[in-house]
């Protein structure tokens, strides 16, 4: 592989990892903030997450240039096409995390949830973090067997996230009361929590694309 081509690929991978790292940092920060009831942290997430959009444009433009200059084929081509779509998944994950942070800051501060629901939200957040940590390992791995194990672990986290969301939904709905203001807030909080559940779906989307890049076949996600 020519050095200048290698440099482009390294540049793309490094920026992709930075994007995932920003999502992970925001999620981990919110997890700690939830545990410590320090909800001001939620307000600072938006600024951190904004960088993802710039990085996504940078990665996409580098890929277009790399396609134009190096005419990659087979695995090299699959990898670039996959990453072009991965940046889109990560941008959507960014939106999910940002919207969750903005909305939940208020609901947590208002004391809208009981301890059991908060614990389930913490578990949901942990699932999204675990799934994205596995994504990082998949991006770094060249070993197909290792990637497959990581992929399966992401699917497990997605299942967990689905179940946890359903539990949270039932808990919240069970506490909807006659006070219409509180009820509206509770219904809206479910929309926000759904965003957190979607972050794990995005991790699955990214993992599907990494599998396509590494093992071939067709793009399915």
């Amino acid at each position, binding site marked *: 592989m*020519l050095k200048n081509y290698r440099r482009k690929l390294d540049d793309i991978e490094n920026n992709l990892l930075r994007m995932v790292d920003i999502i992970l940092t925001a999620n981990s920060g919110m997890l700690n903030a939830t545990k410590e009831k320090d909800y001001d942290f939620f307000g600072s997430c938006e600024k951190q997450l904004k960088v993802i959009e710039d990085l996504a444009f940078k990665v996409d433009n580098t890929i277009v240039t790399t396609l*134009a200059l*190096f005419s990659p084929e087979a695995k090299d081509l699959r990898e670039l096409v996959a990453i072009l779509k991965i940046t889109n998944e990560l941008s959507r994950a960014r939106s999910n995390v940002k919207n969750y942070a903005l909305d939940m800051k208020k609901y947590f501060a208002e004391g809208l949830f009981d301890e059991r629901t908060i614990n389930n939200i913490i578990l949901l957040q942990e699932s999204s973090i675990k799934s994205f940590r596995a994504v990082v390992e998949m991006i770094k791995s060249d070993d197909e067997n290792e990637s497959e194990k990581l992929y399966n672990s992401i699917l497990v986290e997605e299942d967990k996230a689905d179940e946890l969301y359903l539990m949270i939904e039932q808990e919240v709905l069970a506490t909807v009361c006659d006070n219409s203001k509180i009820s509206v807030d509770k219904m809206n909080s479910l929309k926000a929590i759904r965003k957190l559940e979607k972050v794990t779906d995005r991790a699955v989307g990214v993992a599907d694309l990494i599998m396509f890049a590494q093992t071939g076949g067709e793009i399915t996600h």
Partner: protein
Amino acid sequence: MENIVSVENLNLWYGDNQALKNININMYKHKITALIGPSGCGKSTFLRVINRMNDLIDSVHIEGKVKVDNEDIYAKGVDVVSVRKKVGMVFQKPNPFPKSIFENIAYAPRVHGMVSKKEEEDLVERALKGAGLWDEVKDSLHEPGTSLSGGQQQRLCIARAIAVKPEVILMDEPTSALDPISTEKIEALMLELKKNYSIITVTHNMQQASRIADYTAFFHLGDLVEYDETESIFLNPKEKRTEDYITGRFG
């Protein structure tokens, strides 16, 4: 960026046939410049202008200025041999001298009086290392150059060119006679060589131009249609003729 080759209002005729029309271009130091275009567009003719190889053709008439390292190489009194020492050339087909590998490298520096007999071994080793060939031939330096494979012969020719420490290396389709593995070795070598030399290469292989060149010049019917950073030429060409050529619509 520092210019290494500057061409002003260059026109060239083969008899009555004008092959290059009012070419103006600055090529830069320590960069690879690729010349692309369909057959007969003038790119090889232009390449040969830069080390006065066209002087060998009787019917050629040239107007304009060609400066290499700020010296007009077509000015009166300029020694052609010194021009060709400054501007080395590698051809399409590997053409080692019918001599040993060692002699292929040592011959020109010896003729130019650049090295003593004692220094020759060092120079040969340096040139072969520079061309990425040393490890493959260090135990057979006195074997004929022609005994090497095609790709090795081409790298020997590159080593021969760099042995006289030129400013510029011209390459006329240097990989068109080579297999893909040898081609990749030459391309990787070109990327290394540009740290110390400026390279101007003619290629019919547009992927090669896009892979290795920093700048690309597109020629058509004797005109320099477009010259820009390679990325711009291959991603956002400004001229329709360039776009049509690189997308395979003509040529």
